């Protein structure tokens, strides 16, 4: 219930003015963003991954500090130096990945950090349970106070998170993609609860890129793209198509010289892949496609629509529930990574710090990790250090890795140079299939250009490339043909990327449109199965 109808600063519970955030690695996540919240509204914060919405909210919750700009809460200028300061000013956050202790009960989680005591020593469990019950009833968020968090379903965990924020006095709730982990019924339930909170005068920030949900529940929305705000709108005044156009779009196109692809035989053949995750959510739904020699097949889509799961299956980080995948006729599902590599598959992993490198080891040690056992690098039981030095120096030169020497620690390099080390290894051991998962995310323009050129060059030399990228610019520029993933399925297949526009892509990416099964099936180039 908006209790202040007047215009001027009093109208807003939160005002963020000209916020700029530059991370230590040089990435500018927010550039001059204005953001405000009216009391008692549900406000959507929309944008693709990497648009800067999480960063903006982290600053409002005190997890990050802005490089410049001002934050006002209830008209008072504040420095939110930590989450506890934000909580003290009535700001709460419900994280996408729950911050709960699984082995404790719901009530115990509720009172973490503010535990009620009996005679000053013992934890008063009864009081914690009572408190949980009271809040649970007051806000109509039904949880079982005595159940262990590990035993309750995801939807209830989320309620616990919301209650946790409310118990701590939050009047403004930031919800980071709250529906990403929920089933349809749980989502419906959540919306009822959020509307209920709104009625009681609570303000909610709803981070999401699901158009239908936004239209259903929010009052206003702020759209972000590439670290900038694209404007604030009343939800009832905009159409889904307009939102899609504002959200998905490209910078000035850096055109890339690219000959027409001459696709050869099928290298990677994926059929009917299905995967249901641990929360019983179908993440991959009947995925079938082919990647042929000499072509780049792009997979576009808003992140979280099954791309990560797909790559995980192809490199055996996970096993699908059904379906098949083969490289040159040999099944790769469930094979050890060593065997997959022997078949000529290379992977540029999405999480480069976890899988891509050993940050404490030298550049040299990082570029030979997939080939250290090969004959050319060994002399009897020992390494042939000369050959290894030569290989490292060659790769550093060919991939223009900016470093002091081959023995420099990889962790000391910049993001772009770390990624160059990864691609130097992955591209150089005679692969026949390259899986490139977000190959240029978060790295500088120079390295990005270099890696894109290299991918095109390799594909034209007869290598099959599967490019997964949330960067629309990248998939549309690099790919010869393109599939769009939405909600675990292939929503569209475009044989030729020429003539494709951002608007068309946006509609498929956000699920406004979907091609027929026949159209999608064209990506399987042998039609028998």
């Amino acid at each position, binding site marked *: 219930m908006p209790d202040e109808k007047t215009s001027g600063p009093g109208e807003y519970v939160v005002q963020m003015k000209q916020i700029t955030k*530059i*991370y*230590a*690695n*040089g990435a*500018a996540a927010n550039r001059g963003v204005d953001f405000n919240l009216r009391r008692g509204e549900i406000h959507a914060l929309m944008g693709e991954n990497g648009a800067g919405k999480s960063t903006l909210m982290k600053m409002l919750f005190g997890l990050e500090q802005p490089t410049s700009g001002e934050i006002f809460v209830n008209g008072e200028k504040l420095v939110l130096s930590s989450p506890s300061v934000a909580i003290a000013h009535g700001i709460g956050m419900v994280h996408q990945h729950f911050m709960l202790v699984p082995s404790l009960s719901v009530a115990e989680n509720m009172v973490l950090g503010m535990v009620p005591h009996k005679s000053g020593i013992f934890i008063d469990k009864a009081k914690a349970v009572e408190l949980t019950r009271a809040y649970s009833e007051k806000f109509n968020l039904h949880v079982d106070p005595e159940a262990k968090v590990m035993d309750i379903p995801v939807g209830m965990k989320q309620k616990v998170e919301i209650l946790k924020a409310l118990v701590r006095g939050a009047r403004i709730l930031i919800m980071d993609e709250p529906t990403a982990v929920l089933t349809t019924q749980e989502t419906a339930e959540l919306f009822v609860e959020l509307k209920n909170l709104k009625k009681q005068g609570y303000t909610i920030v709803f981070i999401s890129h699901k158009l239908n949900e936004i239209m259903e529940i929010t009052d206003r929305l702020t759209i972000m793209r590439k670290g900038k705000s694209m404007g604030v709108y009343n939800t009832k005044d905009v159409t889904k198509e307009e939102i899609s156009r504002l959200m998905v779009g490209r910078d000035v196109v850096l055109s890339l010289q690219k000959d027409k692809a001459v696709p050869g035989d099928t290298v990677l053949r994926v059929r009917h892949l299905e995967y249901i995750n641990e929360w019983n959510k179908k993440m991959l739904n009947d995925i079938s496609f082919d990647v042929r020699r000499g072509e780049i097949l792009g997979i576009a889509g808003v992140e979280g629509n099954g791309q990560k799961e797909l790559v995980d299956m192809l*490199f055996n980080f996970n096993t699908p529930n059904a379906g098949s995948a083969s490289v040159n006729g040999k099944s790769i599902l469930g094979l*050890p*990574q*060593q065997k*997959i*590599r*022997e078949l000529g598959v290379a*992977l540029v*992993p999405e999480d480069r710090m*976890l*899988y*891509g*490198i*050993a*940050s*404490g*080891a030298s550049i040299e*040690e990082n570029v030979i*990790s*997939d080939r*250290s*056992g090969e004959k050319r*690098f*060994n002399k009897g*039981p*020992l*390494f042939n*250090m000369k050959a290894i030095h030569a290989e490292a120096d060659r790769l550093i030169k060919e991939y223009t890795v900016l470093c002091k020497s081959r023995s420099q620690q990889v*962790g*000391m390099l*910049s993001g772009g140079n770390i990624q160059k080390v990864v691609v130097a290894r992955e591209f150089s051991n005679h692969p026949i299939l390259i899986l490139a998962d977000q190959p240029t995310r978060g790295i*500088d323009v120079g390295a990005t250009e270099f890696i894109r050129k290299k991918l095109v060059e390799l594909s034209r030399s007869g290598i099959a490339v599967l490019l997964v990228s949330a960067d629309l610019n990248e998939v549309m520029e690099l790919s010869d043909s393109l599939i769009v993933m939405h909600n675990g399925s292939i929503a569209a297949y475009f044989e030729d990327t020429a003539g494709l526009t951002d608007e068309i892509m946006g509609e498929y990416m956000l699920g406004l449109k979907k091609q027929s099964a026949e159209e999608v099936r064209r990506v399987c180039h042998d039609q028998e199965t």
Partner: protein
Amino acid sequence: MTRKREIRFIIIRSLVAICIALLVATLLIFISAGGDTFHEKLEATGEALRQMLIGPLFRMSKKKGTSFELKRLADILAAMIPTIFTGLSVCIMFSANQFNLGAEGGIMLGAFVSAMVAIYVPMPAGLHAVVAVLIGGAVVAILMLLPALLKTKLSVSEMVCSLMLNYIIMYVIKFLMNTYLADKSRGQIMSYPFRETSAIAPIVNNTTFSGAKLTWGFVVAIVAVILCGLFMYRSRWGYAIRMIGINQAFAGYSGMKVGSVIVLSQVLGGFLAGAGGGVEMLGRYTSFSWSALPGYGWTGITIAILASNNPYMVPLAAFFMAYLSKGCDLMATYAKVPAQLIDIIQGVIFLFFAAEQFLAKYRQKLVVKSAEEEIARLNLNKEG
């Protein structure tokens, strides 16, 4: 940071760490020193410190003054033999991020098995010791399959498993000794004497060296250091062990056989500990009489930490530990510092030395941070 500055930094920091440690030790000694007046106490403290710091190598007498003594150096070097082996053993296991604590039981079992071969299997001189030591190492290597395979197949903590294994080994050996193997003609529980063919000879056959038990075992230990260094830094298996230790997910993604390498690291570690036990037993003793864990395995852990898991640094760390322990012994004997305090002082010195290693990590973070800031500045300049 340049390489030169880096080295200078390390030297300065080590000196500072040692100075602080000595300061704290001095304070403790002063508090417990005998004497009624401040002056007497001060004198006693000075004497104790002298014993601890230079006593391990120099004989101090009022008449002849301070003079270097070869025998004392030989003592220290001989004391390093078993701890070099356990230090190497722990280095290899910890490098793979496997916190296997079995070096302690391993060295006891290796010593026991080698002793049995030395007693019951007749063989020509020269060959006898070699075979006995190798069998000792092999038995412990096989035993280490237990924590290693439990870890890789069932995710059982190798730390708990190997720790418990130490006590099982100790009690099984005690049981065997008491029940079957003891020489009943002796006044205490000890085995029959080893065959003379099995003895490991002193490096130089004079009273100084044979008295100190500085045997060819020391040379073997140094050879083991070089082999381990080559293995860790110049072979594909050592490389795989180190990469798994740094980032296991990366190693798996790169196609390394993570499970096998984890097993290999522990089996090798077991072999080194076992062989070290054999070398120590046949070099120093003429019959087996250990009735408790010898403590070399624990010292090995300390050494590996001091050496940052680098085999080449193990002899230095082992020397430091042997020197310190000898110095503290002398202090207890000659300077009337209560024996209990010795352990405290040893602990304090080690604490500051290990803390220096923690500082190294902290410094590492600082370097990364400053590099990142540099990049951020550069990027900003580019944008602006």
